[in-house]
């Protein structure tokens, strides 16, 4: 034991601030999660509120729209997860091919802008550009002889619109991490490949892609933890009664319920459910990566 400490004490010391902060600010309040099993009333406090067991979880699943809402959440979140991973990678690889530094920087900065506009603003802009009455997108479609599409008022198209507009907002920001990894790759590797006569495409395939793969896997795994987050702000600002059946998600549902009742318990219960699912998925993918590739994601 003493030998262990002698060898590893600097590691523990370096970890101390983070662990202390996490214990105080994350673990101490965790006791509050018990309100998921209560009918929490603010004036009774956590100690005094009545216990209801799994009532709140049951409520979600027995809710007439419950299955639909969970399904909507899953499908939108899964699509976003995939698209929001692939597009930024492709973009990063394409940008990495640009030789002109100035152009590269300008592009990089511009695509990162939409991340900083909230969905309240972007929602209003989207309604305009997707309008069936003279919106720019439908005008373009019409000029190809395609009839106008009611993107925000038609269920199937709504999901498509949500995913695509989310990518539009986020890909520039998501790509930063991959770009940072790409610039970290040792140029000597490319030079060596060049000498061996590898084409640029082959270099991308055999150097760039494998080297960003670990980060891609990390990002993908961590994103799995949010498999039940379909984007609250976005949906709240874009959905409407015409697309409830395709667009209502868990978070908007909890929000509406909460507005009426200030139900902390219900929100906490659903949050707990979402976290549990996310945690299980992360554990599974961590194990898989370790078993299959002998790689510890973290």
């Amino acid at each position, binding site marked *: 034991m003493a030998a262990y400490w002698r060898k590893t004490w600097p590691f523990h010391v370096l970890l101390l601030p983070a662990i202390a902060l996490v214990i105080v600010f994350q673990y101490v309040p965790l006791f509050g999660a018990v309100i998921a099993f209560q009918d929490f009333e603010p004036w009774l406090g956590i100690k005094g509120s009545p216990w209801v067991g799994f009532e709140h979880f049951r409520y979600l699943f027995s809710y007439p729209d419950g299955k639909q809402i969970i399904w909507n959440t899953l499908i939108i979140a899964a699509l976003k997860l995939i698209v929001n991973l692939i597009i930024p990678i492709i973009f990063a690889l394409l940008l990495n091919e640009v030789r002109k530094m100035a152009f590269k920087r300008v592009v990089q900065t511009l695509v990162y802008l939409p991340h900083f506009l909230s969905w309240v603003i972007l929602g209003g802009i989207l309604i305009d550009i997707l309008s069936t009455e003279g919106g720019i997108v439908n005008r373009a479609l019409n000029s190809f002889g395609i009839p106008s599409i009611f993107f925000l008022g038609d269920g199937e198209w709504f999901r498509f619109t949500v995913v695509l507009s989310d990518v539009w907002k986020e890909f520039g920001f998501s790509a930063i991490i991959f770009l940072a990894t790409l610039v970290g790759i040792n140029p000597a590797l490319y030079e060596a490949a060049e000498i061996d006569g590898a084409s640029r495409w082959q270099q991308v395939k055999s150097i760039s892609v494998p080297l960003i793969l670990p980060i891609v896997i990390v990002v993908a795994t961590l994103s799995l933890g949010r498999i039940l987050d379909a984007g609250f702000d976005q949906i709240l600002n874009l959905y409407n*009664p015409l697309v409830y059946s395709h667009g209502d998600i868990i978070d908007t549902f909890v929000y509406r319920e909460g507005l009426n009742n200030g139900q902390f318990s219900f929100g906490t219960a659903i949050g707990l459910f979402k976290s549990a699912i996310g945690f299980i998925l992360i554990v599974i993918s961590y194990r898989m990566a370790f078993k299959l590739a002998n790689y510890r994601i973290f």
Partner: protein
Amino acid sequence: MSRYLRVARLLTLSIAIGLLPTLAACSKNNNSESAPKSSSASASPSASESGKTEEPTDPRNQKFDPPVTITTAILDDGASRGNAFKPGESMEDNANIRWMKENMGINVKFDFIVTKPEDYDTKLRLLLSSGAKLPDAFAAGNDPLQSLLAADKLMPLDEAIEKYAHPEYKKLLEKYSYALGEVKKDGKIYGLPAFFMGDEGTVMWIRKDWLDTLGLQPPKTLDDFENVIKQFTENDPDRNGKNDTTGLAVPLKEGPWTWMGQTDAIVAALTDQMINTYDVRLFWNKGADNKLSYGAIHPDAKLYLQKMRDWMSKGYLDKEAGIKDPSKSSELVASGKAGIMFGPFWMGDWPLGDATKNDPKADFEPYPLPVGPNGLVGRAEKPLTQGFTVFRKDFENIEAWFAYFNKIYAKKLEMEGDPYFDPRWKDGYHEGYDYVKWDGKIVKGNYEAAGVPADQWPLKDGGTMDIRYMMTNILGNFTSIPHSNSAAVKKFLADPNAEPATALEFDIKQLKKRQLDAAGVRINQNITEGKNYFTGPMTPTMKSKGELLKKLATESYLKIIYGEKPIEYFDEFVKQWLDNGGQKITDEVNEWYAKNQ
């Protein structure tokens, strides 16, 4: 809570305090006739009647010694309030706070200040959860209010009202006692209501220039109306050679009833039911059997849906109405793409005044609502109360609170001979803030034009101060007197140049011509507004199923209007509505009504 109510709650404060004189941009002679004469016997302070041991205090000059401290919380919407404070002053430190301290012996302390209504409720719940002391006097509504009542944290007010309240205010409470359902418990009142002015009833706004271009008359009946929206849609009323206009701009994202662009007039032309889908508490209509029923599931609603569906399919309505909220929808009228929109009188300035700024030809005028085939015509009444001012159970200084409240209330009434009227506030609230004395005149705005030297302007840029925020502090919510501005509206309609005699009249005189006209149109059409007969707290089933039913109703209505479901689907919707808790809610509502009628 529905979006509408969220907005409404914010409106409460805004409208309520909107009554206080603020922006009068004209000057008035100093020798005001509204100065109080203390001869009237009718309104003697009740404190002297009830308190045996108490000295009869002059309500005009009540000062508490030793000073009392009243804690409160407030929603200070910094975004909209404009210039509420001078540089360096704030909600917590300003002329009125100091004035109250010096002249009334009341110290005001804010436990919290937030900028959004949702935040207000969140803060209140957090405060409760952490076991902290509640503020002494504060605004509460809906769910937090019910929690506080259930937790027995509030003070019953009957005694205090009897003892301290302004006699006119007592009368007001009596008159509108039906609206106090939410704060009544065991026969006692636990909150003072914030009343709306009740003047936001729907009028019909039409592009008069389009009517003229097409040689049309303003529609008197629903059939005329249909013809007008047809012509507006099909006959290129703006003569730009493009088929780019719509008859009616209408937001349907939040159902048939909302705060602007609402279609209650169309509903009311077809049936005596009032319909809303976006809140289970609205509208509960009274039937012949004296029972309440939910308007949105009444068979007559089919008449409305049929009409809207027909108009939607013909393109007379904005095709994207289903995805738009009122303010998005109003862009259509402001940009000259739609010719009609329903809504309150204030639309004459924003957004319709902006239509004229963008296109000088655009002339939106207010018209009376159209009459239906069976001679029906009407509009819905916006609920009169939203939110209440409540008091901590152990609050000891309610007398001091009422001393301040009565002063403000008397200032608002400006009733002759009111013993509560503080002569120090005769000309305005605080000199150098909401008014300036110059050259023997009271100047309340346009200081530069009135010749006031720049160093005496309340603000450096010569602008007007919005003093209501300063005055509201411990009042939490502040109440309007419903329908109290009708006389003033009529006065200025008859003679736009009449001299305003009271602060209220000052404000009415500031209305834009179109707003005043519209207020007149509403008053003169003189129709009974459809009331919501349920004013109680949310029933248990409303809490658990309300959101589901709201979603179901709004979705079903839109699907029928958009033609995605046949009109017969309505019956299926009604069945679902009843089966999913609607029946139970109906029973609960009627149980409440039987008790509180």
